[in-house]
């Protein structure tokens, strides 16, 4: 069932409000919703909530035989599915356009941009490597599940600890977390995704982090994935409104400011959670 398009009064009101630079939830045009993170009892489980949009990311690892053409690298797989739990507009089984965009973006931002050092996942060359499986569940869709999912994914990677492994000759010994402290993944950089929504009226500026109604009534979306070192990992603009290069550069600058703030927030929250988990061994 295709999502019902918004009614005529909603459309007219939203466009009028945006012309006056007013958003329905009182945010500024370039305001991101503050994300809140809840960590589960096990490492690598995180729930990211941005306003009413909620996404759970879960990471687990197991040892497998590596691919024959890449015997020194680990394997990372990302599994994301939007179930009807997120919103009654999604159908089970049939991937909607948004789901396809989500899968592709997660793949580009978290896997192909080399966030995790795959060679560090190798245990015994040609025989045993770590396979990391990231599962993304979308719990509630109040707009912009793409940014929320990317955020949840990268925080799950940072939160996760893999068990320590000792290799003696050809023998592999896996130590349980109670014997030896598990080690964190080797992360090269931390990309964050920021989405902008454009509207048909030429005088309306683009908005950051669109809500559900803004996303439905937008005429185009652009997502920029950047890390705190101002390196662009992914720039995704599939159709929509033609945009001038100066405008794109301006939005990239806006993204770099937002990403610095996000990075600071994520680091602080991860540190806070880790302090709570420290166990002293006497």
């Amino acid at each position: 069932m295709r999502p019902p398009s918004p009614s005529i009064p909603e459309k007219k009101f939203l466009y009028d409000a945006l012309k006056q630079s007013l958003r329905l939830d009182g945010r500024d045009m370039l305001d991101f919703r503050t994300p809140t993170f809840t960590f589960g009892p096990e490492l690598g489980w995180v729930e990211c909530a941005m306003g009413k949009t909620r996404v759970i990311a879960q990471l687990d690892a197991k040892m497998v035989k590596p691919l024959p053409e890449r015997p020194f690298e680990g394997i990372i797989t990302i599994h994301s599915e939007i179930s009807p739990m997120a919103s009654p507009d999604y159908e089970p089984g049939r991937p909607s356009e948004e789901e396809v965009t989500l899968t592709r973006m997660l793949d580009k931002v978290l896997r192909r941009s080399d966030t995790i050092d795959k060679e560090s996942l190798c245990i015994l060359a040609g025989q045993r490597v770590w396979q990391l499986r990231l599962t993304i569940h979308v719990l509630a869709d109040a707009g912009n599940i793409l940014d929320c999912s990317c955020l949840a994914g990268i925080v799950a990677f940072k939160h996760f600890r893999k068990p320590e492994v000792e290799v003696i000759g050809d023998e592999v010994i896996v130590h349980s977390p109670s014997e030896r402290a598990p080690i964190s993944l080797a992360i090269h950089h931390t990309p964050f995704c920021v989405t902008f929504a454009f509207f048909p009226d030429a005088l309306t500026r683009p908005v950051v982090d669109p809500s559900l109604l803004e996303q439905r009534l937008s005429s185009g979306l652009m997502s920029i994935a950047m890390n705190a070192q101002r390196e662009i990992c992914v720039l995704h603009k599939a159709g929509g409104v033609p945009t001038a290069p100066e405008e794109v550069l301006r939005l990239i600058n806006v993204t770099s400011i937002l990403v610095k703030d996000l990075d600071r927030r994520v680091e602080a929250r991860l540190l806070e959670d880790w302090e709570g988990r420290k166990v002293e061994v006497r």
Partner: protein
Amino acid sequence: MSIVLPGEQVPAQHVNLKLGPGLLQLSSETQQQAKSAPVIATRSGVLNHSANKSKWWVEGNSRRYVPAPQESVIGVITGRSGEGWRVDIGSAHPASLDGLAFEGATKRNKPSLKVGSLLYARVSLAHKDMEPELECFDAQTHKADGFGELKDGFVLQCSLQMSRLLLDPKHFLLPLLGSRFPLEAAVGMNGKVWVSTKETKHTITIVRCIEAVDPDGGGMDETNVKKFLSKLDI
């Protein structure tokens, strides 16, 4: 005041028993007397009854609307179906509205509605597995009485309990907002509220206040709403 879950039997017995929302009397052919037919709850919530125990109902909160007759709802037209319209009221089935179900409508003189228009209508027929039917006039007087197309303004979604609170004349929110600026509102029992004011920022204020007072989103009380309003620029 006990909490009931769907399927639980309810001790409702009276000569003139009237069952309100959330209760169903199971009819059984083997039962000889109507008095012993069991009454079960179909929704989860708090069980209430009137003083003389003749009226019983279940009060709960949910976001999904189950249509019941004589309730006023706000719907969006999604398409035409023959002589009438297909309207989305947020229930499991889309509702149907006959093209002539308006005040003073004849075959030659029909109201001009488009796909995407907002309507304030009354549910005239609603059964468990059938499509509900709507009408845009009052049942007894056959006059419009506020039903019909809603032009301009904005419609927002809230929980069902919030829409019941807004319809209660003793609730504080709408009179409080009305004392600050002129507003027009239509509340649908399906969790949709239409508001219209002269200025965009006033409408945004109402939307934010309703979302804040909604029991699902925090349930702000009167003093906090006043503080919230003083911080906004009206």
